[in-house]
């Protein structure tokens, strides 16, 4: 039975990151786009922890804490923005939110 190496974790991280990218590119619902961004951040976290395990260094895990904190702050602000936009436009379809287009 093959031993699980760091490459497998990185490959999984890459696949999850790409699924997140596809979500951002394909979906039109602003909330789903936010969730896809969360998934990309998670993929990066997985790579951090895998490297931390591989190198025997705790710094990777400490960085994951900062990523999680920034993600939480980002979600709070982003969802508040979405609620405000929904109040004025009655929609969160990003195709209809183009007021700032030049």
């Amino acid at each position, binding site marked *: 039975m093959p031993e699980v190496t760091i490459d497998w*974790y990185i490959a999984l991280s890459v696949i999850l990151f790409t699924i997140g990218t596809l979500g951002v590119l394909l979906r039109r619902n602003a909330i789903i786009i936010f969730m896809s961004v969360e998934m990309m951040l998670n993929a990066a976290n997985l790579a951090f922890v895998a490297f931390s395990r591989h190198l025997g260094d705790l710094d990777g895990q400490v960085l994951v804490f900062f990523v999680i904190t920034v993600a939480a702050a980002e979600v709070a602000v982003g969802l508040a923005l979405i609620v405000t936009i929904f109040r004025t436009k009655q929609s969160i379809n990003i195709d209809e939110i183009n007021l700032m287009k030049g």
Partner: protein
Amino acid sequence: MGNPIVFFILAAIAIAAGLGMLTSRNAVHSALFLVLNFATIAVLYITLNAPFIGMVQITVYAGAIMVLFLFVIMLLGADQLTGVAGKDKWQRYLAGLLAAALIVVFAIVLAQGNADADAVKMIDSTPGALGLRLFEGYVFPFEVTGVLLLTSMIGVVVLGRKKRGKDAGSNN
């Protein structure tokens, strides 16, 4: 780094949940798929000798953040609003192309990397050790994070405030 069977089962669930989130028509289903994805990643953290990060992942991500998401989805009644990309079919193909290009680039980088045989170095990753490392080497970033959280909190309060003396439809 752990049992291959466990890894493959977890990876399959994580990828399936990600695809489910991507393709679900209903936003609530997407959110629940994402919770499943976060939970499997938390177990992967545990297999990577990072149990505390795994628990934080479950409480903060799967708990707090996803509850916030579900709350907003249900508050707005936005669960049925929009599906996958609208009229422009070419956007879909372009997105697929870009995703394929991204994965090719990652694969090239991964193939070039020379990860040597797995170092069997078990480090001490208890909450105590993590806290020591955080406060020994990362005090300033820690403070900055506090300021960031305060800023976002004020921002959310300002954004969520009802404008007085104006009707809801025409606030600047």
